């Protein structure tokens, strides 16, 4: 009498194969989670493939834009505009630092000694792409500067208007930037005028940023500019982040609900600045 089986032999083999595949996948995933070996390999090689294969496209795009802007769109006016834009960018950055220095001076005038401001080194980079590839589940963009230009994980990315985000991962010539509008972005922020601190969190593209953990009694005004506090150890102190748009003080919560809009125009970025801290430790 033939034996009756719930699964035919071929189905059994298939199920065993699938179980083995899942087991292998989880094993490799766990090993990589612990060591980061595959992540490092993939980001070094994958990002380099993207930048090398994408270079002709970027070159062509730049040339076409250049021809349009420089020859068809009034040569002299454009050059003048370029020069003035560069000047404005420089002045914006100087102004931002001066604001912070002025506030710091007034607070610390009574003190005998305080730390000098950190030295920043700024490197320009071109935006290559937004949300590259199918894994782009976070608000991110690729910038054509990497480890070769001293850009590493957590390097702050800014424009002359304000903070854009921070570097998530980088290869030799390409970096991936996590933008401040992403829900996974959390930045320690402080009000420029009233010095109220909180954590600025993204809510997605086109949505307000939320400033969390601002106690009900702390003073924060609508229209006040939020700057980086420097407490997170990633962003230098005093970079402009966002402007407070709306504040709700609820009687049922210990904290204020603060909505803010980013100062940088994050939708139409072509160039960004990458900020490296090159301050040397004080030798006594």
């Amino acid at each position, binding site marked *: 009498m033939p034996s009756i089986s719930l699964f035919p032999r071929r189905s059994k083999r298939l199920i065993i194969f699938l179980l083995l595949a899942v087991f292998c996948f989880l094993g490799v*995933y766990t090993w990589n989670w612990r060591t980061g070996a595959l992540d490092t390999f*993939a980001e070094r090689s994958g*990002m380099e493939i993207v930048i090398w294969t994408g270079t002709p496209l970027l070159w062509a795009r730049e040339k076409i834009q250049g021809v349009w802007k420089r020859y068809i769109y009034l040569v002299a006016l454009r050059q003048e505009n370029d020069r003035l834009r560069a000047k404005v960018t420089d002045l914006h950055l100087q102004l931002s630092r001066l604001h912070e220095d002025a506030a710091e001076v007034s607070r610390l005038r009574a003190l005998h000694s305080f730390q000098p401001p950190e030295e920043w080194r700024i490197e320009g980079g071109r935006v290559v792409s937004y949300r*590259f590839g199918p894994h782009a*589940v976070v608000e991110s963009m690729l910038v054509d500067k990497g480890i070769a230009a001293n850009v590493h994980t957590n390097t702050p990315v800014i424009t002359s208007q304000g903070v854009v985000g921070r570097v998530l991962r980088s290869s030799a010539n390409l970096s991936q930037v996590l933008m401040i509008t992403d829900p996974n972005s959390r930045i320690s922020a402080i009000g420029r005028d009233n010095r109220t601190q909180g954590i600025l969190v993204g809510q997605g593209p086109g949505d307000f940023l939320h400033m969390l953990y601002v106690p009900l009694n702390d003073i924060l005004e609508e229209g006040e500019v939020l700057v980086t506090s420097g407490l997170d150890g990633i962003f230098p102190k005093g970079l402009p982040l966002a402007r407070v748009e709306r504040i709700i003080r609820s009687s049922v919560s210990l904290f204020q609900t603060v909505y803010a809009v980013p100062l940088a125009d994050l939708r139409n970025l072509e160039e960004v600045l990458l900020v490296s801290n090159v301050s040397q430790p004080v030798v006594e």
Partner: protein
Amino acid sequence: MWLFWPLFVVLAVWMQLVFPGMDFLAAGIVLCMQQERPGKVLLLTLVCVVIQEGAGPLAFGASALRYGTLVVFFLLGRKLFEAGSPAFILLVAGFFSVAHYLSLKTMAGLQSLVVLDQRIFVDSVLLFFVFLVEWLVLSRIYRMIVPHASRS
């Protein structure tokens, strides 16, 4: 002829640079499975995995899972359907977009990343159409370049 697949990878990367959140490599893997030997399929899949993993924000594993399920589904489906039939490709595209949604949710969850559900859903739906259109265009070009190419 040997230039077809390197050119495909370059053009797919260009398309991904222009269109945010899209996958232009998956349709090529399916076409490669229909037309080429397993060695070439393996090589192309490895290159695609490295590109997507390297330039994406997730930890290693998401594209291995996505392309792995695509390959397994294709190999199993080939036993039941004609590999080149439009109905089968429609089924593969549908399965792949569902797998895309589920695998990204799973992998982002494993990393404790906060993701916008609506965005992944929209990307998955768009991926379905991109996959179909790209496969149609690719297979036509492939047949033009390789006259003896199989229609199945």
